[in-house]
């Protein structure tokens, strides 16, 4: 039973009411001590707590917060209740509300002994924690899919944050696909001093003035704003859609444009060396682009161009009126120039036939090439010159190390050191050529996306820079081959489909503003930080996520709410200038236990991953790994110090952080950060790029995949959606203990899915779902589930499509039988198991315990 002694009320003026103390004797024996009054609130249902060690009585009571099950409005402050003496039965059920602790908070602070609790994984992935706000504010608050903070209760001072030993940061996914209200009014109301956009969390002093929630300046409400177009009423500015929604999109006027909005311009840079033709990507690309030519985002002004390169750079004249595309070769790669001025980037609508002719002819043009060199640097310089006047998107396809011209790279990887337990070298770029080029491109609003389809080492660490700083994306297909590796080929096709048709924003900038007192000091993601809080994104796409770290410069003691606003100014593919604004509001707390109660463990793990990658590039990989372990040790030590006199045996964590060691262990076993297991350098660097640029859900699936048993799914507790029944098997822990030979298991890692079939799996499953007679007849490289008309098959496919519902990039699918490489990859994802170079989960917990006792 939870017991609290001291009741502090923060900024409220209530006093502890001794008269509210219930039946003393039995209470005191339960609590193990007196308590100086508290407020009691009756929860609607009894809530039983696991017995708690009396040592917890030293915990100061957190501020009472409204629980989600309570309807009605509760201001985010303390409301003193004084109730008559409750009966004992009511009392035991009221213990959940004892000391004014809401059930939500008490549940997140419930101590869990990690060494004894075997099943810490909840059966379904936990939803993000709800901030402790009043219902009104909660309804309008920004969706956690868009904007998420590592601590949903912001500490008041930097000292309190340091005591908690948790990082404070935000994870954003600002351009995610969603439907949102578009404001068409002419005036965009912004604060005069800090230029914050008006949002649902401002306060209206009277009908004519509003107070900014970030800098507290009082501003006037302009006349046009007093009229509400939605309800056609006057004088209710707080009912306007900008103030009722935390995610809005404004139509920007010409004040927000440095130049007229640019059209969509797409340039494709294709590697056509011998290696590239061998791998066969050109066919896949041309076919994909032909299929999606109509669906490229844009309007009648859309331009398109192609440049191919091997040891020279080739341009294609696609002028409308020519009978066929004309190839122009520039062989002076030390000083690349653009051969003609007009017709290399042509209007898509006008030259569509020529473009189609070119795409049909391209794969055949280079089949007999003998060129083995690749002049990527000069090709990129040519692309830069070509796109400088307008800006746009450059898509680079590269299949080997660039060996010619500016930006040529050496092979830096030593294959013998792949499993080294000591430092991994060459994680940073070898030359600043690509970084400089990316900055030049970013200045001209050109975003460069990189598709690396190579089977040998291609120094992705240097090449990825060209995308990192120009707000592009990196895609990597190791060992790509159109015949020998059909799984990669299918993945490439699916990814291209999404890549070519997804929404895109051009010449974008993003600014993240916070309440006075908070400041941002580090940024993670693919963009260029132009000034202290202005991020320059040449292209913005709906699949990239960003993270920032914050510090508390001044005390937030005089406010109860901290707000964050991310404003993204971009040009849509149709040439319209828009501003997308997201606003998040979180409560400010002054107690350490409340900080722990509001910890969002998934956001914390992602931010720690970003920090670890920065550290491994700037200092060393082993430093980064040690820092990750220390993060867990410090945090759990701080928690233990906060609630003193806990039993020394056992590793106690609050329920909100119970998955912390598990996620950190999973991070340590990621390709990006692992040592001792053979990892190719390019794959490691790509894993690092993914961790830094993917949105949070993708990262969590990558780090801690979801494991389900699917051969015995029942309709029990299934979801019924649109006439299909979607079974809901529980999540299993990632250990081989949970696998059995009689079952079939699905591992969902985000970008790849594995279906592991046990040797003695029942034949009904194999027959009805996979379409084969028995285990022995299963092929070793199945990459999809056939569509059979059996209930099992329908159920399985319904489940898998439900998992893939809101995903943008479809995963590659592998049925794991005997094939060595897929089997190794599958088992590497079982993070709780011991490997020859890494701890098992239990051993990791013991290691943490040992570190804590030092």
């Amino acid at each position: 039973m939870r017991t609290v002694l001291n009741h502090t009320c923060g900024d409220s003026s209530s006093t502890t009411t001794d008269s509210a103390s219930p039946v003393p004797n039995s209470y005191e024996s339960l609590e193990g001590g007196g308590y100086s009054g508290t407020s009691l609130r009756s929860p609607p249902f009894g809530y039983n707590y696991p017995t708690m060690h009396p040592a917890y009585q030293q915990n100061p009571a957190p501020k009472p917060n409204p629980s989600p099950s309570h309807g009605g409005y509760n201001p985010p402050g303390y409301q003193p209740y004084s109730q008559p003496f409750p009966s004992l039965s009511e009392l035991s059920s009221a213990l959940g509300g004892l000391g004014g602790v809401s059930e939500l908070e008490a549940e997140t602070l419930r101590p869990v002994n990690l060494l004894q609790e075997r099943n810490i994984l909840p059966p379904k992935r936990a939803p993000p924690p709800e901030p402790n706000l009043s219902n009104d504010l909660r309804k309008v608050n920004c969706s956690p899919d868009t904007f998420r903070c590592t601590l949903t209760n912001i500490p008041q001072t930097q000292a309190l944050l340091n005591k908690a030993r948790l990082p404070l940061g935000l994870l954003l996914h600002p351009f995610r696909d969603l439907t949102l209200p578009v404001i068409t009014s002419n005036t965009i109301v912004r604060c005069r001093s800090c230029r914050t956009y008006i949002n649902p969390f401002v306060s209206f002093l009277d009908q004519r003035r509003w107070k900014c929630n970030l800098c507290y300046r009082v501003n006037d409400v302009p006349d046009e704003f007093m009229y509400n177009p939605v309800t056609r009423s006057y004088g209710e500015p707080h009912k306007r859609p900008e103030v009722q929604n935390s995610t809005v999109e404004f139509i920007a006027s010409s004040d927000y444009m440095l130049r007229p909005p640019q059209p969509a311009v797409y340039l494709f840079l294709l590697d056509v060396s011998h290696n590239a033709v061998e791998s066969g990507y050109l066919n896949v690309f041309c076919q994909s682009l032909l299929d999606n030519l109509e669906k490229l985002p844009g309007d009648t002004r859309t331009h398109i161009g192609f440049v191919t390169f091997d040891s020279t750079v080739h341009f294609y004249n696609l002028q409308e009126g020519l009978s066929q595309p004309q190839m122009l070769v520039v062989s002076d790669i030390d000083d690349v120039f653009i051969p003609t001025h007009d017709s290399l980037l042509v209007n898509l609508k006008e030259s569509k036939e020529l473009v189609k002719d070119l795409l049909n002819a391209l794969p055949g043009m280079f089949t007999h090439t003998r060129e083995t060199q690749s002049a990527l640097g000069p090709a990129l310089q040519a692309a830069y010159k070509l796109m400088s006047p307008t800006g746009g998107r450059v898509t680079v396809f590269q299949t080997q190390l660039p060996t010619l011209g500016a930006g040529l790279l050496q092979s830096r990887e030593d294959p013998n050191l792949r499993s080294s337990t000591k430092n991994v070298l060459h994680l940073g770029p070898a030359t600043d050529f690509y970084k400089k080029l990316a900055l030049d491109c970013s200045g001209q609003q050109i975003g460069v996306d990189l598709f690396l389809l190579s089977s040998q080492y291609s120094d992705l660490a240097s090449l990825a820079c060209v995308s990192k700083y120009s707000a592009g994306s990196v895609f990597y297909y190791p060992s790509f081959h159109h015949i020998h590796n059909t799984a990669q080929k299918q993945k490439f096709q699916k990814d291209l489909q999404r890549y070519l048709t997804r929404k895109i924003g051009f010449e974008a900038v993003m600014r993240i503003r916070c309440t006075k007192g908070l400041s941002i000091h580090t940024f993670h993601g693919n963009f260029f930080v132009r000034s202290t809080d202005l991020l320059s994104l040449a292209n913005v796409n709906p699949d990239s996520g960003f993270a920032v770290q914050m510090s508390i410069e001044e005390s937030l003691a005089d406010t109860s709410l901290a707000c964050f606003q991310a404003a993204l100014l971009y040009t849509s593919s149709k040439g319209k200038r828009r501003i997308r604004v997201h606003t998040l509001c979180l409560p400010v707390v002054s107690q350490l236990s409340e900080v722990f109660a509001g910890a969002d463990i998934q956001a914390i793990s992602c931010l720690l991953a970003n920090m670890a990658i920065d550290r491994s590039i700037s200092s060393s990989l082993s430093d980064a790994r040690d820092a990750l372990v220390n993060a867990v040790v410090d945090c759990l030590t701080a928690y233990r110090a906060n609630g003193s006199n806990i039993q020394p045996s056992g590793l106690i964590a609050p329920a909100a952080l119970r998955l912390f060691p598990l996620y950190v262990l999973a991070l340590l076993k990621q390709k990006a950060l692992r040592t001792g297991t053979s990892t190719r350098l390019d794959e490691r660097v790509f894993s690092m790029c993914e961790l830094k640029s993917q949105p949070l859900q993708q990262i969590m699936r990558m780090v801690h995949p979801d494991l389900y048993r699917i051969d015995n799914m029942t309709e029990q507790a299934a979801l019924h959606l649109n006439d299909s029944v979607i079974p809901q098997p529980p999540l299993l822990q990632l250990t081989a203990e949970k696998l059995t030979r009689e079952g079939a298991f699905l591992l969902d890692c985000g970008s790849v899915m594995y279906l592991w079939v046990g040797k003695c799996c029942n034949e009904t499953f194999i027959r009805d779902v996979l379409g084969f007679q028995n285990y022995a007849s299963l092929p070793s490289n199945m990459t999809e589930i056939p569509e059979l008309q059996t209930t099992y098959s329908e159920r399985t496919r319904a489940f898998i499509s439900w998992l893939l519902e809101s995903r943008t990039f479809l995963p590659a699918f592998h049925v794991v039988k005997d094939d060595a490489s897929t089997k190794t990859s599958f088992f590497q994802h079982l993070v709780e198991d011991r490997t020859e170079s890494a701890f098992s989960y239990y051993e990791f917990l013991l290691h943490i315990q040992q570190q804590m006792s030092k």
Partner: protein
Amino acid sequence: MEAAVFISSLVDCCALIFLSVYLIITLSDLECDYINARACCSKLNKWVIPEMIAQALATVLMLVSMHWFVFLLNLPVASWNVYRYVKVPMGNMGVYDPTEIHNRGQLKSHMKEAMIKLGFHLLCFFIYLYSMILALIND
């Protein structure tokens, strides 16, 4: 001879003071958004090697003229300059890298470094001035 050494060190020190002030002004321009990161970093990177040479010159002058105390005073700064220049990772565009300058409080640490150097050079300026006057008087 003594006087000549000190006069040249004095001139050298003056140059270093002006350079420090220029660095501080440029960095604070970046903080206040008057220039962008790329322009700022290219300006600053231009002066990294001249600064290193000037500081090394002062140190060597003191060494050659056997003023051990002042030599030892100048040595840490000179070696720090060299260390900073050598330790730049391969992929960075010089000591001041526009993609990293806004991360991890680098702007603040560069500012602090420039302030400390300014203070140090002012101190050295007065030491040289005093020594020069002494040398001139004694001649």
